[in-house]
């Protein structure tokens, strides 16, 4: 075996080992903090390995047969290491490591058993995510795709005794599963047409133009549906805001930095195939841009700080997808990486705030800058990055996305994305002003989080800045394609958003209530999430459960009813015939004698 692949294999192997130990040996799991230490140690090793792999730029592939068949295995598992997966390995292990350290403090009030369970799920998640990233084929990707979905389900439902958390977990699973139906059908069709799940083989044939698959557009669209579910694209984005019922570190890791970006990763990874079907690419771009705008409007009216960030995640995922759809996959992927950093930062900072004040509602916070300056500063850094202010990381990646979409002559999506950029700055500064500035609403004495939480925050903040500076120094390649007016334009939009937020929520120059009245229909729709949640709930209750009830009734009372009717008729027939049996032996003898007599008569007549 190729020794150079040992290191990439080590990356997912460490969290898997941690998961196995925690899952199989309950005494270790029940130590709680011990379990956390084990998990963190494993992920730390993974992180170091991932950095080495990334730094040395390994490229390689290795597969083993998984599902055998007569003519060679029909499915394989393995690892595929290339620049895309290397970058993802670092991002996933880095954010996971920081989140797991942060969780140690954030969840310190949990019972040891529950904490052990948390780290078991976390290790499983990291393993699955890494397996997804390293997947050399669609099937393995789907396998881990589902596994990360499982971890998301388990972690959203971590506080399973809260009804809201239980509901949100199930909802997340179902909605993403709905998208996955398309994914699995897509890969089944693709396999039937090409006989392989392997990326390398498919890409080779795609490049050599020998991938003559009828209906490739349909297949790729179906596969894209998986990404729609997982990356919370319209109309399957409804699960992500609800997923905020999980612990905040989970939101930071799974629902901001890593798992939700799997859809973008999928499109990036399968780019050679998607490139063959421009109509699907256009759909991806339009849907992505629309998602970005839609989510941004909902973020503007949301009062729950975590939900604002969740909508913002949906919105940014729309950005990435729009870039991918416009053919600018490197830009989308770059945005994925930078977004992973600063969105994790924002979530973790929001977690520190929630930890301190005990509520998610921004209108009950305020003036927290004094109480927790560290948190406020890192949150501000994250906000600036998200709003796209140079020289932070978000600025460059966002501009690359906008440039890519513009270059692809997708004017509609471009305008939507530009408007989104404005709204992004607006709602993020709205959150900043409501939370950290203005009058203090929160009771009690909010205090700065412990260093175990602040450390990861600062680290992420520094990385956001450093990554931005590095991009500014090194990477002009993304800029070259973009028109010169774009950077000032996007910064101007961000500035406009900032000014609006300042005027409405800090200075009080404009009354938010009046704005809401002026935009009443929009406000009404956005607050009700455009009725999509209600639509899904209605479909679930009315269509699926209603239909199930009908079928259940038919099965019990009609299909089984026919059987019971037959039974009852048989019983009735027996009931009426049984009176022949008197139970007296002599009556039976009469019968026998009479029968013999009849036989005699019959024999006599017959002989004649």
């Amino acid at each position, binding site marked *: 075996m190729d020794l150079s692949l040992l290191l990439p294999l080590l990356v997912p192997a460490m969290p898997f080992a941690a998961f196995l130990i925690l899952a199989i040996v309950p005494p270790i799991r029940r130590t709680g903090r011990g379990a956390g230490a084990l998990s963190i140690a494993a992920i730390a090793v993974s992180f170091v390995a991932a950095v080495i792999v990334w730094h040395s730029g390994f490229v390689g592939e290795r597969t083993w047969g998984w599902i055998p068949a007569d003519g060679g295995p029909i499915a394989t598992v393995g690892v595929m290491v290339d620049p895309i997966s290397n970058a993802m390995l670092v991002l996933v292990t880095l954010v996971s490591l920081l989140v797991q350290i942060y969780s140690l403090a954030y969840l310190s009030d949990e019972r040891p058993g529950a904490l052990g369970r948390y780290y078991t799920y976390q290790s499983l998640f990291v393993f699955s995510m890494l397996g997804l990233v390293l997947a050399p084929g669609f099937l393995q990707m789907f396998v881990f795709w589902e596994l990360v979905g499982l971890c998301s389900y388990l972690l959203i439902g971590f506080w399973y005794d809260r009804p809201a958390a239980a509901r949100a977990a199930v909802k997340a699973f179902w909605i993403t599963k709905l998208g996955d139906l398309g994914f699995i059908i897509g890969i089944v069709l693709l396999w039937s047409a090409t006989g392989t799940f392997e990326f390398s083989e498919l890409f080779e044939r795609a490049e050599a133009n020998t991938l003559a698959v009828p209906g490739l557009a349909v297949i790729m669209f179906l596969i894209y549906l998986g990404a729609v579910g997982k990356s919370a694209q319209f109309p399957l984005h409804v699960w992500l805001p609800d997923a905020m019922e999980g612990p905040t570190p989970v939101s930071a890791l799974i629902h901001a930095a890593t798992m939700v970006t799997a859809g973008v990763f999928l499109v990036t990874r399968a780019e050679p195939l998607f490139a063959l079907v421009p109509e699907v690419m256009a759909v991806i771009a339009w849907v992505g841009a629309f998602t970005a705008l839609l989510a941004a409007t909902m973020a503007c009216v949301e009062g729950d700080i975590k939900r604002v960030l969740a909508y913002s995640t949906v919105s940014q995922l729309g950005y990435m997808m729009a870039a991918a759809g416009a053919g600018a996959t490197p830009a989308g992927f770059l945005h994925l990486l930078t977004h992973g950093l600063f969105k994790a930062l924002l979530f973790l900072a929001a977690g520190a705030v929630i930890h301190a004040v005990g509520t998610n509602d921004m209108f009950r916070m305020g003036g927290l800058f004094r109480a927790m300056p560290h948190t406020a500063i890192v949150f501000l850094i994250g906000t600036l990055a998200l709003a796209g202010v140079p020289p932070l990381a978000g600025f460059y990646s966002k501009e690359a996305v906008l440039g890519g979409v513009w270059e692809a002559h997708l004017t509609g999506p471009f305008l939507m994305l530009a408007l989104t950029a404005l709204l992004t700055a607006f709602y993020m500064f709205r959150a900043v002003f409501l939370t950290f500035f203005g009058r203090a609403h929160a009771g009690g004495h909010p205090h700065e989080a412990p260093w175990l939480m602040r450390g990861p925050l600062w680290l992420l903040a520094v990385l956001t800045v450093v990554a931005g500076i590095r991009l500014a120094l090194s990477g002009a390649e993304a800029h070259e394609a973009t028109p010169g007016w774009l950077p000032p334009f996007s910064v101007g939009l961000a500035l406009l958003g900032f000014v609006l937020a300042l005027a409405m929520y800090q200075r009080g120059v404009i009354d938010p209530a009046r704005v809401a009245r002026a935009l009443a229909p929009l406000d009404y729709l956005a607050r009700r999430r455009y009725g999509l949640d209600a639509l899904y709930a209605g479909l679930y209750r009315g269509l699926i459960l209603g239909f199930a009830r009908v079928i259940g009734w038919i099965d019990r009372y009609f299909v089984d009813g026919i059987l019971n009717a037959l039974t009852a008729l048989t019983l009735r027939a027996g009931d009426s*015939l049984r009176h022949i049996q008197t139970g*007296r032996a*002599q009556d039976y*003898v*009469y019968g026998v004698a009479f029968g013999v007599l009849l036989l005699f008569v019959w024999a006599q007549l017959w002989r004649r």
Partner: protein
Amino acid sequence: MIGLSSYLVLAALVFSIGLFGVLTRRNAVGILLGIELMLNAVNINLVAFARFHGDLTGLIFTLFTIAITVVEVAVGLAIVIAIFRVRRTVDADRLDLLRG
């Protein structure tokens, strides 16, 4: 010379008397006696045929039948007594546990 048919008529008469007894007696012991008569009618037939056909098989069969009859009576009476112990009656009309 008394012919075969005379024996057969006798046997038929005995059988009919026995059958009549089985059908009309209400006492279980009476029914048993009726069955005895019917079996003996068979015996008469067997012996008569054996005599007129000069075949000993019929006689041997008769011996078997007599032995079986004895056993049957023994078992039958035992059942009747057992029934009497339980039900305090041997009236056949009231022994209708098998009524449907």
